[in-house]
Structure formats: C-alpha cells, structure tokens
C-alpha cells in the first residue's frame, strides 16, 4: 500500500531537500489506505479482551466455562494457555501476557476470546467469572519511592524503584558554591499523565501459517522488537513470527509496547483461523502506556548577573505497574534535567517507580518533557527574582558547541541556542488586544463568558533540549535494502526497510534519499516487514537519522557497484582510475563534472544491483549508576517557543492567541513534513499545558474517552509562526538533526509562562486548571479532581447538525 511512484517531476525536486507529495497521500484521501483496523481475511474471527476492573487484586479463580459455551465462541484463553514465556517487556520482561495470580493495574488483560463477530466476543468476555481478592492499591508515587515499610507492587522486589539515576557534577552542596548565589528559588512541580491519543485504535490481524507460525499485520512503531518479544511467549522461533506493517493511525510512543500482538497470535494459533483484534477508544486508553506523571522539586541558585551557580533536583516519575521503558525515561530526565544551560555544580536525582497506576512508557519527548516544564519554570522564577528579561537569562546561560553537560558529556557540533533565541525575539508579535482589526476570540470562546473584562494578555518563552536516537550504549541500528533495475527503459530504485511509517512522512523521505543518491526519477518504497533486518523504532526522533542513514549507505553501495559494472562493460569510457572515481549518478545517467557519460539503462541493461546495509550511529556509553557521568547521547536538538495568551483571570480560562517557534534541524530534508512535525509537536505541548490528563484516583482511570480526555481542537490552536535554522551536524547524514520531539518540549513551558505572566500566579502543576489560574484561593481540594470546567472552546451550533 505504500509502494508507488512519484508524480512526474525532476529528480532534484523530489530528492533530498524537496517536498514531493506523500506516496500514500492519494490512498489516504480516497479512503482506500488500509489501516490495521480495516484489514479483513476469509474466515476471520474477532478477538476481545477481558480486563481487570481493579488496580490491585489477587486472582483467586477464573471460570471460563460459560463463555466457552456461547454459540459462535471459538476460544477462551487465560494465562495458563500462553504457549511459552508468560511475560514480556521492552527492557525488563515483567509484564504478563495475561495476568497470572495478581492484577497490578486497572485494565490489565486477564483473558481473551475469539468469536465469529466482535459483539459475540465482547459478550463472551462479560460472562467470564473472575474471583478477585481486592488489595489496597499503591497509587502515591512518593510513598512508593520512600516508604520503607510500604507494600511492594512486585512482591519479589526489594523496593518499588525501577531505576534510580543520580547525576553529580561539581559540588552544589558546598557552602562556598552556595554563597555565590544572589538568588535561590525552590519550587515543586507536577505533571499529569498525558495520553498519546493517536486516532487509529490498536488493531491487528493474525493469520496462522502452514509452518505452524503466524503472520501478523500490525500497526506498530518497531516490527522487530515486537517479533523479539512475541516469539518466546508463543514458543516459536523468531522466523516463524513474521510481521508486516499495516497502516498506522498515529503513534507518538504509544505503539512502542505490545498491545494485542501476542493475544491475537495466540487466538489464531489456537483456532487455526485468522483473528482480528480492534480496540475501541475506551480500551485504547487501557491498551497502551502513557506519559509518566512527574513530581519534581527543583532548587536553582544564580548570581546577581543571572548566571546559574548551582541546581539541585529530585525527579519522581510514575512508571505504573510494569517497567516498559521507564528505565530509559529516567535516564533522559536525569541527563537533560537542567536543560540546555551551563552549570558546574549540579545534583539531579531521578527515580522511576512502580505503582498500581496505569503503566507509563514512551511518549513524544520521553522524560525530557517533564524536566523541561520544571527547569524552564525555574529559569522564569530566577529571572523574576532578579528583575531580568526571561530571554536574556536563557541567552546568558545557553549551551553552545563545546559546552559540558552535567553528565560530563561535551556537546559536539553546533548547539545554536543563542541563535534560536535571537531569531525568536525578532518574530512579529500579534497586535495588542482589540487592535487586530478582526475580533480575537476571548477566553471561553463562543461561550460569551466575558466581554473583555478580567482578560489579561501574557507572553512567555520556553526552550527545550532533546536527545536524538537511543542513548546509554544502545546500538539502535537500521537496515536498508536498495535495488536498482531498469523497467520500461527507466531506472527504478526500490527501497526495502522495516521502518514504521506512522504518519511522519518517512516513506516519502526514503524515496527522496534514493532519488538523490542514485540520480533517478523513480523510487519506490516497499511495504515494511520483518523479511529485511531491523530498522529500529520510529521513536526518539531517530528515523530520518538512522533509516535515512541506512538508505543513504545502501544507495552508496549500489552506486559503487554500478560504477564497477560500467568499468567492466565500458572500459574505454574513461581513461584513468582517477576519472572513474569522480563519476556521479544524476539524471538517470553516469556523469562526470555534470556532463552525462552514459545512461544508467545502458550500463545496467537487464542486470539488477542490490545492496543491503546496516547503519550505526556513533557509540554511546551508559551513565555511571553512582555519578551519572558518561557520554550517553548521540545528538542534541533544540527548539524555542514564544506563546501569547489571553487569560480571563476571573474564570481561569485561557485562549492562546499566537505561538512562534524556532528550531534548529541541521538540514531540511523535506520542508513540508518537517513543518508538520513542528506544528503537531507544538499542539501536543499545548495539550499538556492546558487540557490533557488521564485522571486517576486510587489507581482507577476516570476519563477513558474523548468526551473526558480533551485534546486540542482546531479552535484551541493558535496561528503558529515558524523559523527553521540549519546548523549542520558534521556527524549525521546530510547534517540533519532529529526534529519530531523538541517542539513538544518547549511549547508547554512557553504557554504556562505566558499564563503566569497574565495572571501573576506561580502555576506549578500541568495541565493548568481554571481554579489554579483564577483568583480563587479557597478551592476545595476535593473538587480539584472533578471536571467543573474545561478549557475547550465551545463552538456555536452547527448549521448542519451532526446525527
């Protein structure tokens, strides 16, 4: 479905740096693109999942007999039916395929059913009788971390700490150091649990194969890591667990962990029939990990000029019931914990915790988002204490090429934060309130909650730094197979990788790279599957870098073979080896100094050239567990936002008037896709600042729906002005810098700073709630959990009503 040729255009236009149309665009606007939830197979059954209603309970018994007897039900499976290993996990294999003797979070899978249709399968789930001994949940992450006598989420463990990672640099406790600080600010911050809220629900189709294996068509971010986790649980060798990427309706980290991959495969293997599983929205909220909620206590000291003297931070990240990627999230929060600023004396202590809350793992920004909200809030607090401009204090402390991070890692290559900030402040501000010529929506939108009284305007800034690619010694290589052949007289390059196109436009970029490197007009990207080596995950803003690098490297190998072939077939073409070494491929020909020598079609004839190459980024090192020292990251990327908001300080309602963003991307490979990443990342940052939170009480999820979990609508999003800088990284393919995550970091603190600027309150918890913003001091704590207000702007009645 992703294989297609591009429309007629020159190789230059559609190569690296151009913005060719998405090859899957036409299918997506005609409704023909096959998402994982659209798949169908002859004789297919539907799967459904029974999930725990309790955040913590012992399972005393499971009776599936009634479910099995329902007409149309073909299999009812529990943990006892898992063919192989009973647990899996991305880093630690602590997550049960199906709960065994205990459930540890609300929504944990307990049993699965296959039936003729989805309704029968769901109905059968409801007839499964599970006897629970309900236990008090461990839902307070501070208690989970520090109460030595408290219960353990996992009985066999000494504590509830998935990872403790300190970063020690200099001596922030030293009296002489502290004496240099003219101002010291200490604040505690809290970040709520954000959901990826991709629109395409988890879904997949498992088809049993004749060889006893299974073929799974699945929406995921990393086919090979799914395969690696699935095979031992299914008691199959990896080569009998074959995965093909189905159409992915967004990911944002939420498809890094397994959802129904093993379940659908178990049902297919048991029944001998294809089994499709599709979550509905409610189940989706339980079916994937979320962004870690965080409690953070930060102390910053700065001298009278505004230079950072010392920083200390304690960061608690709630990983929920199972480890998922908490270990790596902690590493990011710790190593990037003071942001893109220079400071010699630092102590950061980051904890990732087990609780009986929903499991948390990857979401865009991955540990760097939570810390960014805290350190940027602290920079504003310091600026205010010193009477400084918030941009000036950031500029003064900004990292640059050669700066040493608290981990001891030196920043290699450009780190143009000062240039980013310099560009940001020159961007035009919106007209003052009431001067725009058009009526700006007030906070509260069409609800007519104000005529302007009580509305204050605020401006705020945020900066973020994100590591690109996997860190701490992990070799997340990518593999590409590139083939060049002549078809219909034209050279065609085909690119085969296992890299997941999740919407970001990687499928477009792979073809662009092939066109540029091989000088051809036509490049086709084949469907991603496990028939080729791993591409690593569509995570960590890494695919342009890693799979881009793999495609480029494979193309270079193909090019070298083309030249060898040309030398063999046409030895008289050029006189010297040196001349041959300068031959390039462009415009479907071999060229020397931009002059065509011979057509590619004449060189290849009926020959086909194919090369498969792995691409590895430079080696990194683990952080020392005691000191947090180590060159742990591959690359750093930075963005900065300015937010302008109108706040109704009486009602606590916010309208974001305008946002401006500057990001350094090293090199623009596809401007259209890149802008889409920056705009979409900004929107998710706005959501975290103003509305998005999975609310839990005592481990129970209270709002698993799009009615109660709000994501920004088109009315919530302001116009976004953008400037993109290109300070090339000498170490990366084309000089690029990963780009998907940084704007998600900086958007949130910029908006919160703007709201603070408007209402004059500290605002240390996100998402912001109206009662925190409004001048209400005696808000009953109990109501803070309720949804008395929303930030959603209410549109007027539609002319054409919805059904």
């Amino acid at each position, binding site marked *: 479905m992703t294989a297609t040729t591009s429309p007629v255009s020159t190789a230059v236009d559609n190569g690296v740096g151009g913005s060719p149309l*998405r090859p899957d665009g036409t299918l*997506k606007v005609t409704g023909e693109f096959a998402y994982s939830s659209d798949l169908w197979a002859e004789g297919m059954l539907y799967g459904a999942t029974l999930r725990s209603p309790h955040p913590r309970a012992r399972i005393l018994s499971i009776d599936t007999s009634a479910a099995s007897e329902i007409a149309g039900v073909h299999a009812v499976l529990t943990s006892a039916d898992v063919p192989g290993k009973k647990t899996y996990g991305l880093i630690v294999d602590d997550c049960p395929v199906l709960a065994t003797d205990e459930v540890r979070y609300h929504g944990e899978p307990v049993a699965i059913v296959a039936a003729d249709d989805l309704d029968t399968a769901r109905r059968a789930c409801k007839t499964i009788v599970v006897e629970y001994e309900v236990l008090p949940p461990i839902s307070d992450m501070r208690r989970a971390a520090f109460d030595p006598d408290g219960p353990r989420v996992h009985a066999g463990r000494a504590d509830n700490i998935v990872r403790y990672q300190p970063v020690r640099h200099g001596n922030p406790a030293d009296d002489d150091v502290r004496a240099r600080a003219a101002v010291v600010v200490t604040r505690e911050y809290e970040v709520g649990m954000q959901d990826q809220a991709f629109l395409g629900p988890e879904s997949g189709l498992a088809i049993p194969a004749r060889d006893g294996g299974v073929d799974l068509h699945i929406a995921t971010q990393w086919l090979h890591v799914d395969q690696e986790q699935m095979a031992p649980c299914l008691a199959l060798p990896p080569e009998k667990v074959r995965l093909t990427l189905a159409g992915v309706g967004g990911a944002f980290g939420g498809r890094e962990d397994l959802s129904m991959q093993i379940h659908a495969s178990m049902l297919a293997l048991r029944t001998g029939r294809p089994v499709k599983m599709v979550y509905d*929205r409610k189940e989706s909220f339980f079916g994937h990990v979320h962004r870690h909620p965080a409690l953070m206590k930060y102390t910053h000291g700065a001298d009278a000029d505004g230079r950072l003297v010392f920083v200390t931070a304690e960061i608690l990240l709630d990983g929920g019931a199972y480890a998922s990627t908490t270990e790596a999230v902690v590493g990011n929060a710790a190593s990037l914990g003071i942001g893109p600023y220079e400071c010699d004396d630092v102590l950061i202590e980051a904890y990732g915790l087990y609780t009986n809350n929903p499991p948390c793992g990857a979401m865009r920004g991955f540990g760097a988002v939570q810390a960014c909200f805290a350190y940027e809030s602290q920079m504003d607090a310091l600026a205010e204490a010193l009477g400084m401009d918030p941009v000036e204090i950031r500029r003064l402390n900004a990292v640059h090429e050669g700066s040493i991070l608290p981990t001891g890692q030196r920043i290699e290559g450009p780190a143009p934060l000062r240039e980013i900030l310099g560009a940001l402040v020159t961007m035009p501000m919106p007209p003052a309130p009431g001067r725009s010529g058009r009526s700006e929506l007030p906070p509260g939108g069409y609800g007519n909650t104000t005529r302007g009284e009580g509305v204050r305007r605020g401006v705020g800034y945020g900066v973020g730094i994100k590591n690109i690619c996997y860190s701490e010694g992990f070799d997340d290589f990518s593999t590409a197979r590139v083939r060049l052949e002549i078809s219909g007289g034209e050279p065609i390059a085909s690119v085969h990788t296992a890299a997941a196109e999740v919407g970001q436009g990687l499928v477009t970029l792979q073809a662009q790279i092939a066109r540029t490197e091989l000088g051809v007009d036509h490049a086709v990207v084949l469907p991603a599957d496990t028939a080729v080596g791993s591409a690593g995950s569509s995570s960590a803003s890494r695919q342009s870098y890693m799979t881009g690098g793999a495609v480029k490297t494979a193309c270079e190998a193909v090019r070298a073979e083309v030249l060898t072939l040309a030398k063999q077939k046409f030895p008289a073409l050029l006189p010297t080896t040196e001349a041959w070494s300068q031959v390039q491929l462009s415009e479907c020909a071999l060229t020397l100094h931009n002059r065509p020598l011979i057509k590619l079609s004449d060189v290849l004839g009926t020959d086909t050239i194919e090369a498969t190459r792995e691409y590895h980024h430079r080696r990194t090192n683990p952080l020392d567990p005691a000191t947090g020292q180590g060159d742990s990251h591959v690359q750093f990327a930075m963005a900065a936002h300015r937010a302008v908001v109108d706040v109704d300080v009486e009602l606590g309602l916010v309208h974001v008037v305008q946002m401006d963003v500057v990001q350094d991307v090293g090199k623009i490979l596809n401007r259209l896709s890149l802008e889409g990443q920056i705009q979409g990342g900004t929107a998710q940052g706005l959501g975290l600042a103003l509305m998005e939170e999975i609310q839990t009480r005592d481990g129970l999820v209270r709002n698993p729906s*799009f009615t109660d979990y709000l994501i920004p609508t088109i009315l919530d999003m302001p116009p976004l002005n953008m400037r993109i800088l290109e300070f090339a990284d000498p170490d990366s393919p084309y000089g690029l810098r990963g780009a998907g995550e940084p704007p998600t970091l900086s958007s949130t603190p910029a908006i919160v700073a703007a709201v603070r600027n408007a209402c004059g309150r500290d605002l240390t918890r996100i998402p912001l709630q109206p009662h925190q913003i409004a001048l209400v001091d005696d808000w009953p704590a109990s109501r803070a959990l309720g949804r008395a207000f929303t930030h959603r702007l209410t549109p*007027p009645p539609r002319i054409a009503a919805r059904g």
Partner: protein
Amino acid sequence: MTDQGMRLELTVNGRRRVATDVPPFASLLSALREHFGLPGAKNACEQGECGSCTVFLDGTPVCSCLVAAGQAEGREVTTVEGLADEAGLSLVQRAFVAAGAVQCGFCTPGFLMAVRDLQSRARGRTIINLDDEEVREALAGNLCRCTGYEKVIDAVRAALAHPTDPQRAVGASG
C-alpha cells in the same frame, strides 16, 4: 450469532446497495465498514467526539457512529469513497495532499467530508475567501492528532479560494 441479522438497503455514493445480516444494533459506521465494504469512514472514538466517521446522510453531515444503521434505511449516504469521480480526486482531496494536511491520515476522511459541507454552504457567496475563524468553527468537530491543524487550514484555504471551480488545481508545495 444469536441475533437475527437485518436487511439494509441504502443508496451509497449514488448506487443502490443492499446488505443482509446487519446486526440490528449496528451503527451506520459499522454497517458501512463491515457490511458494505467501505472502510473509509474511520472508527477513532465511536462516541461522536472526533468526527473521523463523518458521512453525509441525505446531504447532511453526521457522525455515522451515532446513527443506527436502521435509521439510514432507504436513505442516501455519501462517504469519503464517493468524493473522487472519473475525473480524479476532488479539489479538496488534492489540496489536502499538496498542503501536507495528511500525516497518518486517520482523521482525513472526516475532515474531507466536513470541508465538503463547508464548501457547499459557502458556494455562491460573494466573499470568496472565507474568514479564518469561520473555517475553524466549521472544522471544530474534527480531531487531528498529527498536524496541529495548520496545514489543514492551508488546504482548506487553497481549496475554497475558488469555490465555483472544484477541479482547478491548487499550487502544490512540492
């Protein structure tokens, strides 16, 4: 199956179609997806919150997840699969691809139907370029998680700049 399936007759994208064995409690969305072979309308929330399942029912945009299949009996339904014709993609469809309004694309069918509705309401008006707020209002019932909506607005602006000339090409960015 314990439930007796029902017979459902619709005019879908201009053609009279019949499906049998539609569960009586099925939504129009699931009937279209599961029984008429039209998966273009999407199942993102099935609660009427996201607009991904928007289709026209007798010319009126509805969330097909909120309409019982039986309510559509004998009526005219237009889905995203009906937007393109023999001449190819509609202007709005082309504008969405060209402007970068399509990323994962799961929301796209719903947006296209909402824009088609806006387009039909705007047609014949003297103001050719719609006000930005008006566009935003019209699309406020459609959620998108990828784009931040900027390029959706770009696409709508490009497509609606010439409301009487639906086949006119828009300037592609690439």
